[in-house]
């Protein structure tokens, strides 16, 4: 099958996929909303365009993607965006209570509560979903235009609510200086503070190498494992919450975190043992022996400045982005 540009015009797209468009139109039952097939085809084209933007996609690939869409929800969203009153009434009847339930859950997750507040959060979406005019006499621009059928309409609405709520929280949150925030003692830190060891002139060298090795090891971890680490250690989520977010069982998350921590440490040890070759004007750095590695880890138990963003720019590993 010939490669076709992902950004095909509406006419070309409709011609190339006419049969599938007709099948999907029937499957989506768009006729009940009196949604023209042409409008539905345009929605499919925009969805494919978004998915395959800046990428060459074959005819079969595009058709496989179109078949994977939630066409019934897409048809409803299109009809609502087009101003079909029947579709809008159906949407309100079907989704209003679910949105309010989602808003209540979102507020609960953030430590807030109140039915009135939840209703306000849920209903705030309705005006934008119905559509607002950007100019006095111009067409309405509905939030439904951002829905392309890749997920269920209900999940998308939940995600929109969640996004807005989180952004509002982040805007309103007080910024607490991390330097003044008391660090929770790492295991062993209390003992170290009680009995401070004599200053080691090589301490800075050990921590610098440890930081570089850690960045490199982190970059080599699979994205999902890094995500779990971030959820657990950065966001302080419980195992159950991480499991719910990543759709895994709590025990799976626990086992995976254990494996990830072990893999991280082993990787750091291997990198410290290997050392670094001369590069970009920097001299070569020989590997550390076992005693030195042990000492580096002991220093890691103490307060230790580690800036990932600076370290990422210096890492030798293949970029994770």
């Amino acid at each position, binding site marked *: 099958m010939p490669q076709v540009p992902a950004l095909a015009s509406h006419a070309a797209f409709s011609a190339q996929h006419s049969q599938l468009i007709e*099948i999907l139109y029937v499957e989506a039952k768009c006729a009940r909303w009196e949604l023209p097939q042409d409008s539905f085809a345009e929605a499919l084209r925009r969805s494919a365009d978004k998915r395959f933007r800046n990428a060459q996609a074959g005819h079969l690939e595009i058709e496989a993607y179109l078949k994977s869409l939630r066409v019934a929800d897409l048809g409803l969203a299109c009809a609502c965006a087009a101003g079909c009153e029947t579709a809008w009434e159906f949407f309100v009847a079907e989704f209003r209570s679910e949105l309010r339930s989602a808003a209540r859950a979102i507020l609960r997750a953030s430590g807030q509560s109140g039915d009135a507040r939840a209703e306000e959060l849920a209903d705030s979406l309705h005006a934008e979903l119905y559509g607002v005019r950007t100019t006095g006499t111009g067409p309405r621009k509905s939030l439904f235009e951002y829905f392309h059928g890749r997920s269920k309409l209900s999940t998308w609405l939940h995600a929109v609510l969640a996004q807005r709520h989180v952004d509002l*929280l982040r805007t309103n949150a007080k910024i607490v200086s991390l330097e003044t925030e008391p660090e929770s003692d790492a*295991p062993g830190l209390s003992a170290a503070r009680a009995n401070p060891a004599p200053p080691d002139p090589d301490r800075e060298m050990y921590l610098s190498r440890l930081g570089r090795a850690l960045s490199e090891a982190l970059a080599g971890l699979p994205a999902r494992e890094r995500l779990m680490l971030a959820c657990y250690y950065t966001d302080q989520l419980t195992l159950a919450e991480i499991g719910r977010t990543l759709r895994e069982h709590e025990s799976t998350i626990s086992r995976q975190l254990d494996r990830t921590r072990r893999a991280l440490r082993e990787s750091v040890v291997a990198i410290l043992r290997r050392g670094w070759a001369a590069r970009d004007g920097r001299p070569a750095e020989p590997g550390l022996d076992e005693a030195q590695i042990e000492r580096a880890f002991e220093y890691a138990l103490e307060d230790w400045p580690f800036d990932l963003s600076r370290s990422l720019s210096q890492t030798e590993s293949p970029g994770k982005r």
Partner: protein
Amino acid sequence: MNENKNNESRARLHEEALARRVGKALDRLLPAGTGECPDAELIAAYQERALQPDEISQWENHFADCSRCRKILAVLAASVDAPLSEKEVARLGELVGVAERPSLVEMPGKAKQIRRNRFDWRVRWLAPALGIAAVLALWFAVRPPWHTAGPSENLIAQARKSEPLPGTDALIPKEHPVLEPRPAAPALTPPPANRIVSGKETDELKTEIARAEAAPENAKKGLANSDLLNGKPLAPPPPAPPPAAATPQFQAADELANRNAPGAAPDSPARDKPPARERADEIAPSATGAAAAISKSTRSMQTFSSALNTANLGEILIAAPSGKILWRAGKAGKIQRSVDAGRTWILQASPLTQDWTAGSAPVDTVCWLVGRNGAIARTADGEHWAQIVPPVQASGGASQLPDWAGVTAARAQDATITSSDQKRYRTQDGGQTWQLQ
């Protein structure tokens, strides 16, 4: 051993320290370094595991570095799994309860509609109840259970037990003299146009066929519904043979039925003429109300059967064994499939443009279609159709392919097709070669 334990615990300590340090570093990571955040739809699709593997990897890379997106994911996960409030559970219960009656989508002030629907519910059951009562009355009239000695005057004018009334053999199960109430009548009401027989109705149809097949042979010919289920157009049922000692009124009806029976071949639809049995009933005005009700049910069934063809002229219906998968094929190569026993239909891409005349589906994913001008097609996966080359030997000297009148398929590879001149060809290799039978 103690040393090993100490080493292990120190290793765990180091692991924990490294992981904590990573966590703090990720928290301090500037948003600009993480790339653009995904929109709500991508986040929702990620939550539903609807993304492709490369997309999942790409976005998990981003999520690992972006605290905002992680927070959104956590909040979204919590909201999707949120338990409903009591009010919402009650509301869902109401929705489920009225799911069969969409007109009752709960709005205040629809009490009249609810009352009307309840009335309709009673009326809907009244017709079959009356029909059954009529049958019972007829049964007792023909064979009153309290008479044990000698024929009475009343029995002389009644048909003998062994010779059922015309049109009743399909409805009176011989093995169960007492009829049990069953909602036969609603299922026999002709459906509105563009609706095809449902899987449940197909099953009831099959039950009626089984009963008819247990009846005298002519009744078997009369109810050619197996043809219907195999995609052939219906033939009008020929009349039952007249009973040997029938009463004058029934005899007259039967004679008329015999005289007016259509002489058409089984495959030829005679849509314009009402079935002979129908005309016989009209001529016998002295039939009891029970017989009239039975005849009406029979007419309804026949009308329903005809409606399957007349509602979508020229279309054939093919049911797969499960009853849930149906195909509908008609003019100009049109093919549709239903996976919900006929409630909804999906147009399928057809390889040909000829009119389809017959079909056969041995399993849910395989269907053979035959049509005019040698058209043959088959799907082996239920979705994609491919043209099958017709048997060369069928073309004759004029290079013209015949119209196909029937097909019987045992498997995806094994099918037998019948031409309009009654020649049969069989393939056992999916149509690559054919043998004249």
